[in-house]
């Protein structure tokens, strides 16, 4: 049983490093944010294995939840996601409207 | 009289509490709360100095909780800690009173409340950095200080200052992450978080030769982190942008107080956590000495090359911080005394220079280059006088505060072999460079104009408070310069306590 847990632990750590490298190397911010959210979830499991359930709960809520929401909201504010859902022209006109309103 | 022992903790908690109160109030009330807090807490810091001066040991540790160290948390006060707390409070008070008029212009009216909240939080964080006796508490309050000082920069209306704030934030983040990992490494080899316990464990570990490598790395990481945050030589490039674009009050606080707070924490780390012996053995002091000397020269050269008055003042900050690191790098008690006095002189002078530079640039509609600023001192006389006083103090003319540390540095430099020559040479070169750029600026602001731009004559009556503040600052500067002996003897006593009593 101990060996299995150790193997599992190593697997999780490897996936953490892979996620981190993927976040660092991906050129699109959107991809990086998504990968980072998964990184946080893996981190929560790692902390559970380190016998720190307090940390696991906090990391799952804060790292994956709030942080992810904030990143996506920012991307949306910058109109970097809008284009996924709308056709290009609406996004562009929205951006212009936004710019005018801000100024 | 034992009640005075509560004062350090009351200062910290009261300023945190006042920041919460300011959140509920409007700007005007928030300002009065801030003034009230600063006055009260300076009185408290002063009484702590007096208490320690006349008590037997001159030092006390105060439990933050019901248990002694290493179980509970602690704060401690010798003579240096309350002295620097008092200094920081006075400087913050003078900067916000002097920079108030300009603040109204630079910060949106609805956002001024947040400015005062941030001042209160910076104050709380600085007090904690002065008094703390726990390494993780220090980290937490470093973070508060970082966020609050970034917010002070961001509060200005101009987008330009946002860009500068971004650079400052990134540098601060790099610094605090290095500090954090250093702290964690220290914890992992010692198993303690409180200064006295870490000190004991480190001495024992160093004697046995165990964990020497991680200890050196941890020390290096903590020192480099704090050095980045306070703007030591290779990392001083954020300074001109940051100090040059913020509102004068914020740049005065940042350069005069916040960076000094980090340096004071660094001193605590070196002398109360690691121990001076290990610091000297690890060889890091030589690196600090070299960087300090380089910073003195490079900062001054950059200041000569720029043609913007606030940028010049900011670069001169980099040079002055180089002096402090040079003193730390020498590693003796005399050099430490000189470095501490340099902190005092610089904290008292830099805000005055920034306020005066702001006042001067007000006469020509916010322009900051030397050509436009010619003859501006005639249009705003108090600013001109203050700038002259500050410049003379920074150059190191006797009777001003800036002279004393230079003298102390040259005294302390003797007896270090080849280091003596380096330090003396650096002092000489740096003083000459200082003379070049400060006197050029002085000549510029008092000589007749060459560019034809609209100028505004600013009369005393319009800037009464500013005038009073600037004159008070100049008088304090002169007093410290003329009567440096009480402060020096206080420092001598304080350094003994700082190094020896835990």
């Amino acid at each position, binding site marked *: 049983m101990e060996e299995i847990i150790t193997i599992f632990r190593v697997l999780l750590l490897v996936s953490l490093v892979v996620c981190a490298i993927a976040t660092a190397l991906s050129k699109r911010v959107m991809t990086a944010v998504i990968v980072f959210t998964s990184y946080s979830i893996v981190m929560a499991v790692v902390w559970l294995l380190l016998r720190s359930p307090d940390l696991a709960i906090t990391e799952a809520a804060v790292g994956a939840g709030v942080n992810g929401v904030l990143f996506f909201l920012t991307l949306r504010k910058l109109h970097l996601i809008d284009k996924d859902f*709308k056709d290009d022209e609406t996004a562009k006109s*929205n951006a212009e409207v936004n710019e005018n309103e801000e100024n | 009289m034992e009640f005075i022992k509560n004062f350090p903790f009351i200062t910290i908690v009261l300023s945190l509490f006042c920041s919460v109160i300011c*959140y509920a109030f409007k700007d005007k009330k928030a300002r009065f709360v801030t003034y009230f807090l600063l006055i009260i807490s300076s009185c408290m810091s002063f009484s702590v100095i007096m208490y320690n001066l006349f008590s037997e040991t001159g030092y006390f540790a105060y439990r933050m*909780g*019901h248990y002694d160290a290493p*179980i509970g948390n602690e704060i401690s006060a010798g003579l240096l800690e309350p002295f620097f707390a008092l200094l920081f409070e006075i400087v913050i008070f003078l900067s916000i009173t002097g920079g108030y008029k300009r603040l109204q212009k630079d910060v949106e009216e609805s956002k001024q409340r947040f*400015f005062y909240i941030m001042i209160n939080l910076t104050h709380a964080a600085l007090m904690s950095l002065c008094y703390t006796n726990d390494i993780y508490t220090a980290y937490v309050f470093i973070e*508060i200080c970082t966020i609050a000082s970034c917010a002070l920069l961001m509060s200005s209306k101009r987008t330009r200052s946002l860009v500068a704030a971004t650079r400052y934030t990134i540098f601060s983040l790099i610094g605090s992450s290095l500090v954090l*990992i250093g702290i964690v490494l220290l914890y992992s080899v010692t198993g303690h978080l409180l200064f006295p316990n870490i000190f004991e464990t480190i001495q024992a570990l160093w004697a046995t030769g165990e964990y020497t490598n991680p200890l050196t790395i941890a020390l290096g990481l903590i020192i480099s982190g704090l050095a980045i945050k306070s703007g030591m030589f290779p990392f001083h490039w954020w300074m001109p942008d940051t100090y040059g674009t913020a509102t004068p009050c914020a740049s005065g606080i940042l350069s005069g107080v916040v960076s000094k707070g980090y340096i004071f924490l660094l001193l605590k780390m070196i002398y109360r956590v690691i121990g001076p012996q290990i610091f000297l053995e690890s060889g890091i002091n030589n690196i600090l000495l070299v960087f300090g000397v380089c910073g003195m020269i490079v900062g001054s050269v950059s200041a000569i090359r720029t043609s913007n008055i606030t940028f010049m003042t900011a670069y001169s900050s980099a040079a002055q911080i180089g002096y402090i690191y040079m003193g730390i790098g020498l590693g003796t008690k005399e050099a430490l005394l000189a470095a501490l006095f340099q902190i005092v002189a610089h904290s008292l002078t830099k805000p005055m220079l920034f306020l005066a530079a702001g006042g001067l640039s007000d006469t020509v509609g916010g322009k900051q280059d030397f050509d436009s600023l010619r003859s501006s001192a005639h249009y705003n006389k108090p600013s001109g006088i203050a700038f002259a006083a500050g410049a003379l103090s920074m150059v190191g003319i006797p009777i001003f505060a800036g002279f004393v540390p230079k003298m102390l540095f040259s005294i302390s430099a003797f007896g270090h072999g080849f280091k003596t020559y380096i330090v003396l040479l650096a002092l000489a070169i740096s003083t000459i460079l200082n003379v070049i750029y400060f006197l050029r600026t002085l000549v510029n602001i008092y000589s007749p104009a060459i560019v034809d731009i609209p100028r505004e004559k600013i009369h005393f009556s319009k800037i009464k408070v500013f005038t009073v503040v600037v004159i008070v600052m100049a008088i304090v500067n002169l007093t410290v310069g003329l009567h440096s002996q009480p402060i020096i003897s206080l420092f001598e006593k304080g350094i003994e306590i700082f190094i020896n009593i835990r």
Partner: protein
Amino acid sequence: MKKTDFTKNFKEWYEGNLSFDEQLSHNVEDIPVEHKKDEPHHVRKKIRTLQKLENDERKATKFGYRVFSIVFCVIICAVLIGTVNFLPGFADANAPTANEVYEHYVGEGREQTGAVNTVAGMILDYRAFDTLGESFVLFTATCAVLLLLEKAKNAPVKKRETFTFSNDPIICLVVKLIVPIIIVFGVYILFNGHLSPGGGFSGGAILGTGFILFAMAYGEDVAAKVISAKAIKIITICSLSFYCLSKSYSFFTGNEFNGVHSIIGPGTPGDFLSGGLILPLNLAVGFVVCCTMYSFYMVFKRGRLD
């Protein structure tokens, strides 16, 4: 064949050119520069070659920069791993961290603080000053974000955001089902911080995410009616002031020379109302965290607290 597919896909992903996101890359050099039609052919050609050269140069410096940063990363890695090599082993019972402090926290913590969860006892009793600082970090961050993003009070709220989740039947239904559960779970974690894993930070964060989900699904206008800006402000101020005052009391009474003894005892360990100040402090921290998270969301989304 599969291998080439994978390498191609990986390369595309690495370049940021996957089919669904070709438009989204904001690398400026990718955007083609428009040429004026009336320029003569050779001029256009020359411009193009120049641009190509410039692009190549930029790519070369970019490549150099990338290589340099990777080398930097490897150096830092090497130094730090070299340091780790000298540290005590992982999961070692004789490590320097397993010292008398730890034994005191676990062994005596239950009797001294009344908390069954040692972590809660540690952060809210033995080392409460850190936690006080920590909740003020959150407060500072809230103020800083408000300073940066808050709009004037009478500025109109933009109606142009046509895409909200409240139009989506699946998301709306799932959120309706899930939000009460999340909030109840958050409250449970918050109130049982001294008895089970959790406490102020985790419970507050969960509550905060619950409210954020609520605001997302029902629209911010509805959420603003339920949780007003004033309520957020009042809760934050009250919690922080309570934290300050109660901790001042316990710091003050913690030192014998003041001659005052704390009237707050640890209670019976394991009871719901036990642990002295830990339960109320957990609540205060939880409310602060919750309000902070929720107000981050609202300020980012709408530029103000409600």
